[in-house]
């Protein structure tokens, strides 16, 4: 009797010890696991690109960099790319701000339509604008012919215009979010005390928005210099780094030079990333009151009103016209050449598989990305271990990584055994997960900062195990962040081209790549019809997602994809 009792006791004891150990160290174990994932799927591919750029067939060499800096061509390419990024960022921010201001502070009836128009291009491939511009303003475009104009669309100007139109939605989305989370009471009190709209803007709104503006600037800059669809279609002979990198890899299979171009593309992004972090140091304005609030419409003075109206009308007008062109093109055999109304473009089913693949990849990526994002945020905020800030840095670095870099990195890192992933669908999903991780992580961090650790401690003191606490307390609080990460990853993954274009393989074609091929190839009708189909399907997906989250009464995070 006695020995049996003893052994039973021992067993229970050892069981408890395992449990205690787990309870005490689960955060650390989780951190180690996440660190491993980050190292494998984010750092390793980047290092692979760095190594490739300095390692020739006969050992390490700086020859490739020498070539880069010796050739006028590459220098011009770099210059054009940076200039494009700078112009784009500024213009997109200005337009995005005007739109966001109108939809959060402007008259009620305008808010919803403006918001919809500004957001729709987010789920269309960015190079759609290049297509519309050719149809309208090309050398034989509809408008060009109508007014017998002689302008040059192909070149720097064309790329800037199409890229700006393509990234207005992103700028709008981020700035609207920032404006929504500013407590309007401050502005309203200032207004009540007689401050003019301009003064309020200058002294309250814009300074309070600084962190959001900086973040948006960083993201737009990085995304424009890496997105090469518009440049590949409209650049003509003007060199840009992203399309050059693409030709270097896919056309010449020169991975050394391709890696050098990528590294050169990373450098400015990393610099801006650090400047951004430095500027934001100690300037985190946490949202007072927590919940996003829409402001009452105020009387806006004409000085502000007129430019606002001009900018918003011009921007939404341009977006609408481009979409109208795409919609029209999808119903014509060749818009502007043989104007015969047909439905054949929609009945072309070769693109359906690609659309299905895109949705599948984006869904898998969004699910994995949202889970990892939430866990990372938890570990970063609650963990107390060595290297915590490193993990934070790494997981937020996605903001600053041009897509081409991770595309080539994945190709270099995962094309040979034992880590062979190329040729499958997971490489596409994982690539999207780690590229777009930052948004989910950041949303998670800001949510966690809103709750006091005492709630978790209380739960633990009352005897709940770590898992129970995590499951019952932490997860519900972080659910909005989960949804934010999910939706952002889903939407960005579905239209993004710059990284996955290196990773698609026969049988795993994606819609964004398919549309790009059709566009480059001249199948404008098919490209347009596929785009429209993709937009409709993505909207449907988002609606379903929205419905599901609402049904489960967890939808408060939906409105803030970017915290």
């Amino acid at each position, binding site marked *: 009797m006695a020995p049996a009792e003893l052994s039973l006791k021992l067993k229970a004891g050892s069981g408890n010890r395992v449990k205690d150990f787990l309870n005490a160290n689960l955060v650390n174990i989780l951190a180690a696991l996440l660190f491993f994932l980050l190292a494998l799927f984010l750092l390793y591919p980047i290092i692979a690109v760095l190594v490739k750029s300095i390692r020739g067939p006969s050992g390490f060499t700086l020859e490739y960099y020498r070539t880069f800096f010796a*050739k*006028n*061509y590459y220098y011009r390419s770099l210059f054009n790319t940076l200039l494009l990024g700078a112009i784009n960022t500024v213009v997109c921010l200005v337009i995005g701000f005007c739109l966001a201001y109108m939809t959060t502070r402007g008259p009620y009836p305008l808010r919803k339509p403006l918001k919809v128009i500004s957001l729709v291009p987010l789920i269309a491939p960015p190079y759609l604008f290049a297509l519309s511009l*050719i149809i309208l303003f*090309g*050398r*034989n475009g509809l408008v060009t012919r109508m007014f017998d104009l002689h302008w040059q669309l*192909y070149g720097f100007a064309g790329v800037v215009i199409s890229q700006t139109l393509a990234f207005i939605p992103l700028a709008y989305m981020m700035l609207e979010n920032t404006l929504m989370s500013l407590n309007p009471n401050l502005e309203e009190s200032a207004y009540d005390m007689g401050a003019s709209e301009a003064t309020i803007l200058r002294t309250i709104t814009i300074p309070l928005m600084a962190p959001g503006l900086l973040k948006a600037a960083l993201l737009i800059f990085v995304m424009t210099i890496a997105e090469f669809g518009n440049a*590949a279609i409209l*650049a*003509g*002979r003007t*060199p840009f780094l992203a399309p050059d990198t693409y*030709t270097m*890899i*896919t*056309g*010449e*299979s020169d*991975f050394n030079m391709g890696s050098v171009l990528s590294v050169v593309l990373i450098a400015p992004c990393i610099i801006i990333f650090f400047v951004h972090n430095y500027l934001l140091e100690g300037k985190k304005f946490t949202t007072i009151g927590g919940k996003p609030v829409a402001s009452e419409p105020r009387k806006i003075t004409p000085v502000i009103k007129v430019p606002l109206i001009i900018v918003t009308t011009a921007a939404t007008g341009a977006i609408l016209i481009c979409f109208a062109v795409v919609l029209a093109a999808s119903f014509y*055999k*060749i818009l*502007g*050449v*043989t104007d*015969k109304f047909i439905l054949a473009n929609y009945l072309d089913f*070769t693109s359906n598989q690609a659309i299905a693949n895109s949705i*599948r990849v984006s*869904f*898998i990526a969004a*699910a994995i990305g949202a*889970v990892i994002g939430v866990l990372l945020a938890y570990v970063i905020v609650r963990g107390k271990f060595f290297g915590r800030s490193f993990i934070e840095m790494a997981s937020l670095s996605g903001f600053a990584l041009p897509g081409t870099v991770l595309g080539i990195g994945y*190709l270099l890192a995962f*094309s*040979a*055994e034992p880590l*062979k992933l*190329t*040729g499958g*669908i997971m490489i596409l999903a994982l690539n999207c997960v780690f590229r777009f991780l930052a948004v989910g992580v950041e949303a998670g961090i800001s949510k966690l900062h809103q709750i006091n650790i005492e709630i978790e401690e209380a739960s633990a003191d009352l005897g709940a195990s770590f898992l129970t606490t995590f*499951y*019952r307390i932490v*997860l*519900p609080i972080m*659910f909005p962040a*989960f949804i934010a990460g999910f939706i952002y990853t889903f939407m960005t993954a579905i239209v993004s081209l710059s990284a996955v274009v290196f990773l*698609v*393989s*026969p*049988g795993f*074609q994606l819609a964004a*790549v398919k549309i790009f*091929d*059709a566009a*480059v*190839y*001249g*199948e404008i009708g098919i490209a347009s019809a596929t785009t429209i189909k993709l937009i409709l399907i993505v909207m449907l997906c988002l609606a379903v997602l929205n419905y599901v989250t609402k049904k*489960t009464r*967890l939808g408060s995070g939906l409105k803030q994809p970017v915290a």
Partner: protein
Amino acid sequence: MKGKFISVAVAAIFCVALVGSVAAEEINAYMGTSPDNNAKIVQFIKAKTGITVNQSFQSFGEIEARVKAEAPNFNADMIIGCGSSTGFMAKKNGWAVPYVSPAWNGVPDVFLDPQGNWYNIGNFSFVLVSNKDRLARAGLTMPKSWKDLLDPKWKGEIVMPSPLSSGTANMMRFSFLALYGDAEGWKFLEALDKNIHHYTRSGNAPTDLVGRGEFILGITSDENVKKRVDDGYPLVWSIPIEGTGYDGTFVLILKGTKKLETCKKIIDLLGTPEFSAVMAEIGYMTPRPAENKLYGKTLPKYIKLDLDKAADDKPKNNDIWKAKLRSTFE
């Protein structure tokens, strides 16, 4: 509740991800003809054998780059449609699985490798295309000789593909080098460059750009010209008096495939007169005699070519091309 929702969602997603890999007889192939023609070939194979061919559209140049980068772990079972240079390279490096197909008996030697490393399903060429309307509006006529393209009146009105990404452009380059000899050939290309607006990614892109009237002249692959004329583009095409070059559309089985028998079935099918008829209908010069829908009964005049030499010279010529033609931009 809330946690459950997540786990259910995740589980559902993985289920969705797993379904869809249902096994049927199917292979993955790199296919380098135009998207339309790829689809035609895929449909033909499906109709005759029931085999599903998964494919992604890439240009010849891109397929070669891809194969070079992936070797020896290829992500496809076959290539259906690549340039001769890729075929020769695959044979030399042992990337192809040799298979001597009985179905190809009696086909002339230029269309197959005696050891069965590659098969050629059809030769294609490049032609000069022009936009009728723009030509008339500008009061110009179709050039008779390639040299006529050097006239400054065409400045900024000609497009052609870039040999860095397009196999068709590589064919144009080695054809002009063969026609004029290396030294004179490069001089010609440099002079031509002054009139070229820009170089496109795909060998067929000039057909569409000229068809839309964006540019007056294009040097382009012939594989799509007939279809675009039928579609209603105001296109005229011709082959200047010096003639045109050609390249094959090679098919080969990639090493490491787990579906060798399926691949063999496809090779067999591609050797039939029926398939040659499909390719001739598009405009290809086929291994089995068939009436060509683009050129009709009169064969175009061909420039004398050495495809082996062209394949060997490709990397060197890419370097020269970049050095000579890239530094001159504005």
